[in-house]
């Protein structure tokens, strides 16, 4: 049944339901998971991904050069690009936009950290000077922090790239409901918690998108999204859990989409005995890795989810094949390890978990499964749930003994995952210091600056193998992303960075 009615004026419109986390569409400030879904089709960037996250392609840049020392990137811009507002896009706009992002000090500003200066030798050339080599610089350029803003229009509405922009910039509210980009769409309206409406940019320089309008509806509840899709009220239901998708099987008029998400769910096990108690014992941690029923865990997370051996996502450069859930569990060996650690009789501890759903899977539900599994080696856990914002505090301060967390990459490059290594930011959340595994720490440092692809892969794989043996983390899941569309919609393939590349979506 397709009850969906066409727009009153006969124009083509796409309606997508999602549970978004965006609060602002100021490209200098936005750094939410769903930010780029909206901003990518609105603000062009120098580089952008297409289809997959292998390697960035050119966006408004048409070529680039890297200096020998790797510290200077020179981009040539495509000619003849005009902003939706009518102004021509120049190198000056690029410089202004990036400087504004730097000075606004928004959540995504760390992506610009390595930049020392931006130069514009002419209207079509931009030169970025970096502090140190950065293998992921081109990838970072795909973010909205580097989105090119129509600086004239923006300044007319109170924006500034001045050093004190964090306090003197007055354009945030304007950016929420207007746009100043050169992408295929412009923001037509934004009603927080209700919808964002994107309208076709008639002067777009590239291939014109299929839809005249894209409406992104905020429907936080997956059940509701499911209902609306079944009723034909929407074209895409984007936040379905594995269970919802199952219910859609064999439903006419609907196609189910599955993809590998880059989001990980993992167990943190503190290495500090003062905090973790028995948990801090590496043997106990290994025993825990062995006793968990990964197959059951994957059942809960839904079809398509996998369990990487270490915190490196399948799909990234050099990631090892995931665990085989059928053989990964070894209760006997786990018991032995417990005995070795002196906890043959087990012990009691708390399992902390934030109340939220990751890719449609409810974390507390998973926690109950873990609780159940740990009982087999005598570890009795009491689940402590708290709101994510409350749980973040002890997590970031490294005060949780045993906790369940999720992780999404900051940018699509394995380097972002090195944070899990001992001595690095996430490693330290488990009080896993570099001294505890100096070899691993050392290897991590090497991998982060290595630019040769083969060597990088070698280092990365070595790291993963070592982490399978000794790690303060146990990666439970790399999630699958489940969503569904009306079956006449095409071009909705998942790209982790953008979720869906809206400008490519069309209907049969």
């Amino acid at each position: 049944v397709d009850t969906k009615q066409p727009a009153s004026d006969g124009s083509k419109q796409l309606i997508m339901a999602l549970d978004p986390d965006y609060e602002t569409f100021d490209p200098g400030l936005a750094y939410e998971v769903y930010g780029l879904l909206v901003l990518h089709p609105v603000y062009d960037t120098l580089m952008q991904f297409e289809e997959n996250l292998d390697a960035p392609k050119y966006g408004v840049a048409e070529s680039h050069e890297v200096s020998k020392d790797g510290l200077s990137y020179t981009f040539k811009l495509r000619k003849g690009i005009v902003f939706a507002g009518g102004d021509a896009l120049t190198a000056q706009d690029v410089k202004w936009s990036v400087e504004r992002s730097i000075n606004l000090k928004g959540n995504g500003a760390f992506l610009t950290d390595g930049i020392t200066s931006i130069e514009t030798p002419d209207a079509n050339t931009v030169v970025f000077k970096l502090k140190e080599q950065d293998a992921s610089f081109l990838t970072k350029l795909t973010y909205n922090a580097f989105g090119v803003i129509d600086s004239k229009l923006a300044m007319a509405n109170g924006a500034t790239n001045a050093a004190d922009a964090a306090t003197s910039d007055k354009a945030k509210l304007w950016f929420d409901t207007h746009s100043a980009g050169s992408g295929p769409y412009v923001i037509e309206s934004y009603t927080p918690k209700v919808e964002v409406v994107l309208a076709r940019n008639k002067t777009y320089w590239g291939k014109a998108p299929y839809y005249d309008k894209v409406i992104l509806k905020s429907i936080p509840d997956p059940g509701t999204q499911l209902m609306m899709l079944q009723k034909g009220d929407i074209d895409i239901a984007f936040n379905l859990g594995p269970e919802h998708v199952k219910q859609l099987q064999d439903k006419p008029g609907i196609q189910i989409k599955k993809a590998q998400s880059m989001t990980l769910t993992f167990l943190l096990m503190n290495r500090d005995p003062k905090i973790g108690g028995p948990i801090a014992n590496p043997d106990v941690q290994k025993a825990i890795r062995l006793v968990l029923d990964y197959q059951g865990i994957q059942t809960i997370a839904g079809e398509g989810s996998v369990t990487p051996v270490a915190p490196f996502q399948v799909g990234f450069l050099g990631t090892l094949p995931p665990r085989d859930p059928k053989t990964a569990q070894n209760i006997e060996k786990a018991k032995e390890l417990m005995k070795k650690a002196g906890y043959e009789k087990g012990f009691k501890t708390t399992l902390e978990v934030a109340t939220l759903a990751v890719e449609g899977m409810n974390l507390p539900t998973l926690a109950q499964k873990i609780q159940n599994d740990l009982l087999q080696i005598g570890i009795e856990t009491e689940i402590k749930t708290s709101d994510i914002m409350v749980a973040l505090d002890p997590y970031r301060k490294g005060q949780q003994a045993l906790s369940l967390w999720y992780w999404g990459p900051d940018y699509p490059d394995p380097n972002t995952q090195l944070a899990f290594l001992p001595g690095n930011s996430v490693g330290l959340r488990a009080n896993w210091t570099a001294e505890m595994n100096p070899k691993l720490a050392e290897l991590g440092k090497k991998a982060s600056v290595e630019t040769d692809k083969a060597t990088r892969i070698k280092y990365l794989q070595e790291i993963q193998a070592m982490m399978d043996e000794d790690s303060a983390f146990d990666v439970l899941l790399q999630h699958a992303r489940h969503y569904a569309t009306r079956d006449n919609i095409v071009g909705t393939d998942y790209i982790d960075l953008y979720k869906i590349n809206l400008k490519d979506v069309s209907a049969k």
Partner: protein
Amino acid sequence: MGLLKYTARRLLFLVFLVIGVSLVVFFISHSVPSDPVLANLSQRNIDNQEMVEAFKSKWGLDKPLHTQYFIYVGNLVKGDMGNSIRTQRPVMEDLKKYFPATLELAIFSIIIAIFFGMLFGIISAIKRNSATDQVIRGISVLGVSVPSFWLGLMVLLVFYVKLGIAPGPGRISPYMMPPVAVTNFYVIDALLAGNWSLAWDALQHLFLPGLVLGSFTMGLITRTTRSSLLEVMSMDFIRTARAKGLTEKMIIMQHALGNALIPVVTVIGIGFGNLLGGMVLVETIFAWPGIGQYAYKAAGNLDFPAIIGVSILISINYVVINLIVDILYGILDPRVRYK
């Protein structure tokens, strides 16, 4: 006591209330183990001391507590509730956006609740102890007993999914465009814009959540109307009216109902207050972009400017509703008017 004086006193209380409510939230906000800095900065930025400082100074978190409070109150007097940490928009703006949605739903459901509640209550009182009475009392008790979040789920499942006779969640159908914002009440705005189909659509969308939200209040009103009417019917002046030769219908309509309404008004006031409180649950189920969801998110994020904002708004609302109830009292009951 004159009405004016009374109103003045109430308004004075409002000031007291606003100060109290903001103080309480402020107190809670600084006794909590977690920190808005951590809650709102990205993982990367937390490790960056400079970013943390910048964030703190931007939101005034680096100043002593009492200074923060005085700054807040100072701004509040000027109508500035500060910016929400989470949405980064002025709280005032957010409230202006979300509150009308909530209010529209609340008003709609209170109208339903009043209409059916009083109707049922009157029937039940007239036919007291009959089967009809028992059925109505049963319904009214069901109304006050049913968990709204569950009822919401069930009615959506039945009327929207299974039967397809009711529209789905949200304020309007997904393919419709919201009307030009004037009052931010969609039905009214759509009518103002002359867009009949949109107005009808918006009205339809009010129905299920309105019913779910109003079920409690309706039960309360039914119950109160019934007992209040019964009580009034046993009063001396009703006997006088009978002795004058009035028919039962005239007695109920002209003599009993007016008096019976007086306690009902109080209950309507309480009910309306409850509606706003119960919003969180219903809005979650019906994807209603109102103050309830906003508050829920704000509380989760420890977004204190927003929490204080919502709390003050709802408290003010409570006082205003009480004021209206009291004024209605005066209209309904001449004894209050002249006291």
